[in-house]
């Protein structure tokens, strides 16, 4: 009996310890290990490219699909235990990885990746390549516009200003009994694009590089944003209580939706009215706000050279083009024409928006975020959005919100 008890206890304990092991470190290997996370179409796209690579070179690429929420932790732990993947597609770069990242400058140069989305370290070496780009943009319910007899820009020549757009959207609302004129995602990423379009630089370092500040155009834009919410031009509940903006637009009762390119795939399948991606209005500057994901390669992996070779191959024009087609990506490489399965017209508008968008401001938020955390800064905590929500809910003034946001920038980007 005693023995049985001992064995039982030992088994229970060993069960707990299983999975804590594996500290052996990387063994040299010919296979290339790639970590990705994404929806099915993205995962499939990388698997297809891996197969093509194996066919061409005879080298196997092992694609591991890691859940999005676990990817950062998983890569960090792997890097710490010298067992990093050769290549990984990530949404950001952690400070712990910085010393182990392969220099990808030559690939960035030969592929011609978008400058505003290519991540460089302090020595100007490229450490992360953009795999795909998302951009803020405007969708309209063309049926409602048609019903109201209101026109919208169909070429780059007749792009509207924000004032013109507001007027037209209000006309549509009045003539079609729509609930609101527009809806904007409750995200500071979208709000930033709005401030850029008013000619603002949002929040930026002062000339002495000691503290962050903002400019008058940004303040004007933010005031306008608050005004549009208070007037009922857009539903306040989206920002203040997290009401789902996309489903409001999908209900067919709102003429315009200020969101981004990631909606195209969903809209193509799930909307039965005539929706369109249209050129975004602007007051002073034509701009968008880009986001995206990045490809990094690690030095302390089992097959680092093989990993870099794979990256180089993947960014060759014809291969990269294929990847974008498979995954439905907007390319992060200049001058690339891609044929998509669905939503071609919408993608075309987005590509033109990205090409025309003011740089580097249109990629600043994302690259800042990646570069700064790579350098070991804490990064922003989302105070921008939170404080704007408080302004809309009349908890604080706009001045206080700006102060809070600047403090967040200073804590996150100006001091370690």
């Amino acid at each position: 009996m005693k023995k049985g008890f001992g064995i039982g206890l030992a088994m229970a304990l060993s069960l707990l310890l299983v999975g804590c092991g594996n500290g052996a470190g990387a063994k040299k290997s010919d296979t290339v290990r790639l970590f990705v996370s994404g929806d099915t179409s993205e995962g499939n796209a990388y698997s297809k490219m891996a197969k093509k690579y194996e066919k061409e070179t005879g080298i196997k690429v092992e694609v591991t699909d890691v859940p999005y929420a676990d990817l950062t932790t998983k890569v960090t732990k792997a890097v710490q235990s010298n067992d990093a993947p050769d290549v990984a597609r990530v949404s950001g770069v952690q400070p712990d990885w910085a010393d182990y990242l392969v220099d990808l400058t030559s690939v960035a140069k030969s592929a011609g990746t978008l400058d505003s989305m290519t991540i460089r370290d302090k020595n100007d070496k490229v450490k992360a390549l953009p795999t795909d780009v998302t951009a803020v943009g405007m969708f309209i319910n063309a049926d409602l516009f048609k019903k109201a007899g209101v026109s919208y820009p169909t070429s780059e020549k007749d792009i509207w200003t924000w004032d013109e757009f507001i007027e037209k959207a209000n006309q549509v609302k009045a003539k079609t009994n729509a609930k609101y004129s527009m809806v904007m995602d409750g995200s500071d990423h979208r709000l930033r694009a709005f401030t850029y379009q008013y000619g603002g630089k949002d929040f930026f370092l002062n000339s002495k590089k000691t503290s962050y500040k903002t400019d008058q155009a940004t303040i004007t834009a933010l005031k306008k944003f608050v005004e549009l919410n208070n007037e009922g031009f857009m539903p306040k509940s989206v920002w203040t209580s997290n009401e789902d903006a996309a489903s409001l637009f999908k209900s067919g009762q709102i003429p315009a939706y200020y969101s981004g390119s990631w909606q195209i795939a969903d809209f193509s399948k799930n909307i039965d009215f005539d929706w369109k991606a249209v050129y975004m209005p602007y007051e002073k500057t034509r701009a968008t706000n880009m986001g995206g994901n990045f490809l990094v390669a690690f030095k302390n992996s089992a097959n680092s050279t093989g990993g870099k070779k794979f990256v180089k191959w993947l960014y060759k024009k014809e291969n990269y083009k294929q990847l974008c087609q498979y995954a439905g990506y907007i390319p992060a490489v200049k001058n690339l024409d891609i044929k998509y399965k669905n939503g071609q017209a919408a993608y075309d508008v987005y590509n033109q928006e990205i090409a025309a968008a003011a740089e580097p401001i249109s990629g600043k938020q994302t690259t800042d975020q990646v570069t700064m955390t790579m350098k070991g800064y804490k990064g922003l905590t989302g105070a921008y959005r939170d404080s704007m929500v408080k302004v809309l809910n009349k908890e604080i003034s706009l001045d206080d919100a700006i102060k809070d946001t600047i403090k967040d920038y200073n804590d996150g980007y100006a001091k370690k």
Partner: protein
Amino acid sequence: MKALKRNKWPLLFTGINIILFITFFLVPAILGFYYSLTDYKGYSTANFVGFSNYVQLFQDGSFYKSLFRTFRYTITLVPLVYIVSLGVALMLNSDHTKGKFLAKIIFFLPWTISGIITGVIFRWLFGESFGFINYVITLMHGKAVPWFTNSNTAFMVIIFAAIWAGTAFNMLQFLSALKNIPRSLYEAADIDGATAWHKFWYITLPSLKPTSFMVILLATIGAMKEFALVQSLTNGGPGTDNMFIVQYIYTTGFDKMNVGYASAASMVLFAILLILGLVQMKIGGRTNE
């Protein structure tokens, strides 16, 4: 060794529970306390900073705000849940009620739904622009109510959803307790000419004391820890008007990556819950004797 030998069977049967308790409760709790003394950000190293997180926390306005909101929520919710679930249980226990079986199933259904889904359901029902309730109100020529942009109406919706979700479990507790009250007491009261109210006040309620105590204790702790429901219903909104303490801990820890600071806040919550539990046990214990 001797004690171990004597207790080996109890130990064996509770062993898995003990291991689970240590792994999933004790170790995280100790780790949480340790993190609360550091500046841990969720990655890289944790530097020891002593009690500075606590000092900062006790000067933090938004911490007090969310703490008091949680108290307000608890004080409003617990009596309401108590009354509603007792009322439902009494009705289901009454001899005059018809369709008890079906009613029990209907009242119990919400308990099988997770807090997040409850939030989503009530979001649809009370949606400001396209919600069912506002649709009905406008059909009857009323004015649509800003359910989620006004902090008081949003609070009402949260309370309503929480009662809807919390009634089932407490109702079951009361139902089984009601069944255990000896019928002879009521018969004796009938002979003495007691009214229904007298019977409830002098027989039913005193007999339910132990159950009431447990219902109130569990409901209080549950309300203090409310998270999933509010997160999916209003995200603490409008603004931060309905952000409760657990959501505050969550945003500080995981959105703002101040794990050390958030751990300090959860230690304070732990202390508050512990005190609440002890006080209620003391009161409940005395009345049970």
